[in-house]
């Protein structure tokens, strides 16, 4: 039987993004931001936007596929896909879903994207304002547990306490993103460096492991990638970047109600990471760069552990700033500034950065990067991650 895999079958031919804005600062409507990023990805790929025949997104993106297809004059919409789950858990899954559509022949030229001008709608960092809380929230909101940070904090408390991991490990994660943003003119935090002193002096959001700089901001903008069959990518302007492995989902009952996941102190990548590496036929030791979604720095720690990049017993030694910096750290991470400091585009900006690293055009380029992992939003379910590589990795 032929091996069922996406490895080497599809490529990201184009990347696009809007200007990234601070929360509420976009002069454009969210839907227009999506259009700008999509057209930019097509231009980058050298493909007529009317050739796009599919859209994949996640996090309940409001710019829906049929409306995009109508606005862009798409001739033949063949794939329209929304990945369940909130936030950026689905960022890699959206790319993978686009890839699966292309590889299966359901579509030929699929955009995976995210568009966000959250301020035009509601804020993530505020609880629901309804008088009564239903479902799971009935057992959470009356106790003042409402925000994403609060939903995840107790995972992080337990894991870090169990393993004796210090807050300084999380500080290094935050500082790496800010460091890389200083040479990235696209970054929202360009020109706003983060020192250890500034981090340590920042206010508590949640004790014991969430200071202000451990938490993502909200931003406005959009990002998009264009996924095509591997064969086609060879004839397009840029060096092809191939999908080597991708997986999504969650381990046993990771979405159990009211914080009852059996393996609770987790980012929910236990099975997903295994499946992703198996498809890629690679492991963490093969990666030149890692992009790890920061909703909260503690979630990055859990993601890195579950993908095998960090040993929990050695996290205090491994997660130090110098190890995380391009070009020469042992594990260059979030090389464009990540969610914390480039833009909180729910990780889509990290897929774009992975492609730039593999093309050799990143602003904090890691020399001869051939394999880049993108770990999607941690601690939700489903989560997703992917690995991209150059032609040398096929």
């Amino acid at each position: 039987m032929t091996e069922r895999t996406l490895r080497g079958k599809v490529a990201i031919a184009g990347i696009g993004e809007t200007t990234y804005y601070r929360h509420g600062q976009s002069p454009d409507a969210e839907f227009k931001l999506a259009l700008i990023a999509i057209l930019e990805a097509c231009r980058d790929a050298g493909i007529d936007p009317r050739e796009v025949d599919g859209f994949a997104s996640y996090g309940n993106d409001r710019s829906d596929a049929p409306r995009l297809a109508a606005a862009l004059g798409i001739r033949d919409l063949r794939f329209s896909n929304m990945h369940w789950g909130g936030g950026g858990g689905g960022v890699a899954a959206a790319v993978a879903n686009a890839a699966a559509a292309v590889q299966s022949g359901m579509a030929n030229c699929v955009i995976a994207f995210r568009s966000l001008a959250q301020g035009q709608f509601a804020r993530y960092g505020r609880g629901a304002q309804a008088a009564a809380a239903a479902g799971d929230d009935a057992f959470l909101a009356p106790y003042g547990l409402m925000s994403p940070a609060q939903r995840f904090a107790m995972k992080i408390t337990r894991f870090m306490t169990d393993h004796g991991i210090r807050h300084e490990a999380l500080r290094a994660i935050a500082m790496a993103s800010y460091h890389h943003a200083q040479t990235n003119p696209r970054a929202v935090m360009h020109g706003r460096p983060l020192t250890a002193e500034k981090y340590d002096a920042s206010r508590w959001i949640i004790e014991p492991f969430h200071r202000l700089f451990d938490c993502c901001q909200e931003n406005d903008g959009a990002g998009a990638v264009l996924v095509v069959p591997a064969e086609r990518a060879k004839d397009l302007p840029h060096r092809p970047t191939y999908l080597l492995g991708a997986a999504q989902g969650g381990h046993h009952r990771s979405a159990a109600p009211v914080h009852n996941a059996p393996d609770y102190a987790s980012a929910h990548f236990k099975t997903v990471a295994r499946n992703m590496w198996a498809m890629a036929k690679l492991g963490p030791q093969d990666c030149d760069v890692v992009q790890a979604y920061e909703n909260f720095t503690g979630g990055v720690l859990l993601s890195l552990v579950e993908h095998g990049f960090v040993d929990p017993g050695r996290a205090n030694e491994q997660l130090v700033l110098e190890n995380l910096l391009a070009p020469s750290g042992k594990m260059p991470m979030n090389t464009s500034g990540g969610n914390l400091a480039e833009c909180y585009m729910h990780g889509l900006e990290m897929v774009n950065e992975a492609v730039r690293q593999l093309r050799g055009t990143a602003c904090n380029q890691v020399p001869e990067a051939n394999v880049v992992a993108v770990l999607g939003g941690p601690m939700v379910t489903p989560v997703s991650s992917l690995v991209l590589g150059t032609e040398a990795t096929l």
Partner: protein
Amino acid sequence: MSISTTPRALPAGLPAPAVEPLTMPYWDGTRAGKLVIQRCRGCGKFQWGPEWVCHRCHSFELGWEEVAPRGRIWSWQRPHHPVHPALGGFGPYTIVLVELPHADDVRMVGNLLCPPDAPVTIGAEVEAVFEPHDEVHPPYTLVQWRVVT
């Protein structure tokens, strides 16, 4: 177990638990000062939060049973940043995840009744404190926790 006469853990104005058929036996229990947890009549195991089916044996025959209102702190957090207008100018406050050894180690979320700077220890034994909210319609009672001394 005791009916609280102390001030409430959090200011008034936070969302009340919605009255829903699936979860009604639990809230009826707390009004009576009892901790009542969903238990499968098929396999005898407890589960939490309330579900329509037993995740172990897939029985739809789910009952409810009173359990000892005692547990252990499994994890905790202490929010400072107010995420709801009712919490403006208040806090920090302490949220605990409590494991119930008398109910197959299911976990519940509540507030730990303690000073805002009190150390919190994972594994510490806690007991339920029933916190009535009688002035609202419909009235309800939350389950809070305090360390057993």
